């Protein structure tokens, strides 16, 4: 027996029928059609599926879809404003902070959550925010630098 749920995805209202016990990752990819969220372990241990739920980074593979009813979910598909990329996306591109790209959506969302609550993070703050996201390709350094770059450019824009 499926349950209907409604929630906000990247600012738009979406609806889905979900099996009891369905997780948010599968709901987003299979029911709603947002393929920008990636699944790496389906056990909540790699962070690839990180999305923001009411601004808080969560691993969507072990988040029950039903608990998202009425909430605001953000995925990487919603990062850009029309044609304009988010400063984080610009920074990742400039810093070559992705190789295979599979961890990138989760990294970007974890980084966005950080910058939304702390616009001037230290390197240690960035490391702490990203330590739940596994990357096998880059060695993390360019990702950390990209997040710091994005914070600096964001602040310059606002100044």
């Amino acid at each position, binding site marked *: 027996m499926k349950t209907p749920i409604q929630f906000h995805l990247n600012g738009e209202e979406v609806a889905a029928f979900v099996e009891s016990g369905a997780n948010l990752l599968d709901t987003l990819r*299979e029911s709603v*059609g947002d*393929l*920008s*969220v*990636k*699944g*790496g*372990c*389906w*056990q909540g*241990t*790699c962070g*690839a599926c990180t999305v923001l739920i009411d601004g808080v980074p969560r691993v969507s593979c072990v988040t029950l879809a039903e608990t998202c009813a009425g909430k605001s979910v953000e*995925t*990487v*598909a919603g*990062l*850009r404003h029309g044609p304009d*990329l988010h400063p*984080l*996306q610009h920074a*990742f*591109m400039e810093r*070559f902070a*992705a*190789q*295979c*790209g*599979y*961890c*990138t*959506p989760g990294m*970007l969302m974890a980084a966005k959550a950080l910058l939304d609550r702390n616009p001037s993070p230290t390197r240690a703050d960035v490391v702490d925010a990203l330590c739940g996201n*596994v*990357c*096998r*390709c880059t060695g993390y*350094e360019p990702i950390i630098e990209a997040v710091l770059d994005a914070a600096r450019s964001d602040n310059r824009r606002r100044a």
Partner: protein
Amino acid sequence: MLEFRKDIFADERDDNLIEIGQPTARQDILGHVTGTSPYYDDHRFGNLLHLKILRSPHAHARIRSIDDSAAARAPGVKRIIRAADVPVNLNTLLSLIQFGKDDEPSLASDVVRYKGEPILGIVATSERAALEAMALVRISYDQLPAVFDVEEALKPGAPSVNATYPKNTFEYYGKYDHQKLRFGEVEQAFKQADIVLEDRYQMSPIEHAPIETNGSITVPDTNGRFVVYTSTQALFFSLDTSAKINAMQSNQLHFIGGTVGGGFGGKVDTMTEPLCILAARLTGAPVRYRFSRHEEMQFGSPRGAERIYVKDGVMKDGRIVARLVRAYFDSGAYTRLSSYAVVKCVAHIPGPYTIPNVHADVFCVFTNRTPATAMRGFGVTALDFALECQMDKLAVAVGMDPLEFRILNAYRDGDMKAHRREAKNCALIECAQVTAEKANWPLRDEFRRMSSRQGGGAARTGGPDRTRAPAIAPAVAPPAAVPQRVAYERPTPVAAPPKAPPSPSPQGGPPPSAPSPAGSSHGAPRFSSVFGTRRR
């Protein structure tokens, strides 16, 4: 973080290039940061079915009976795939290049040889339905003695792991259970060496752990073809392996991939496509076979463990005069690519050093664990660990600085290598010198002046007659120089006159060697006309 030393080897380069050398943005970076790069699983089909594999819980057992009747009736289950359903249920990956004998089933039928070996496929409307049905399958096993240690596996009386290779080693050239390297006379050299040092090294298996697991989706297409979206690292390799196992023509398969979420060697073995295609053929529906993370961690093939014994003879002045290596590759239950890695390992011995006497025996051994495969540095990584630890120990033994010791023994242009080819285009010495300078590691002047381009030659390995192992006539004459490309073209600069490109090496190589009777018995169709038959 990264800087260039363009001054070094500048006389061998023409740096007048436009696009080459530019830090151009990656073609795929925009897709990566917007989550739009298309991995194999980023394709949706309305009636997608899911294939899950029931795997052996035992390392070594005979299957006495399988009762899948309850599973077949379970809700959501469309098809059970059994060993008898697989058209060609015995394969080895390198049969595509005629190397080795078929030894691995896609689905085990009588014996399971590693924990995790696939036995049944369950195709259902959801992963959950497939897994719930899997729990209803009843299999009874007679457990068999298992062997997990490579040297134990080679002892007489050890349990036989692989039916195709009952003595637990791959067969080389139809007569040897290992690959040999013989250059000079090590035993004599050990007697003359001032210090002899031997040690044992062990590298455990490594899991590739890409963030995207292995997987594929097969979709029945029009005209009887099948489209396969895949995470493979080798498109045609996987296509042809899948065609062989499914007894299909290669042009019935349309493989699409090219954007992979990390591989590192773990996505060459074509672990999902053959059964995924079979499931689509048997159900007429699109099917996805996706490794869970647990499957990827424990049943996806790892970098195989390697045990390496190194014995070196060194003189007090720092020259290494003899190196003997005995190494065992733990291939797990089946060959896959380990047979090839053994030869690559032998080719790498004794490392980038000129040593006049080198002896190696390297084995591909079967044990009752997950079959191993290629991983970043295949055949070389563990050996480099052993050799470079050994170099350090030798340096300490002769009282020399470890970097100076390496520079002394480093190969130079013109030196003879243990596999009887001339060293060319060397640069080990320069790498050592530049790193030492950057890291403030003091080197004596004599070593800072050495060069890869000076001091090399056949005399360093005892003269031209040292290239032949004594008393054994060579099986083949050494081939002529490998075909070399002519100098590359580049746009002519407007202002300065063009610099002469590096002089081209002789074009054309030896004619391909005549095919000799192949050692393999699989009868696999040749998948490319460019391969002759290997003499193995």
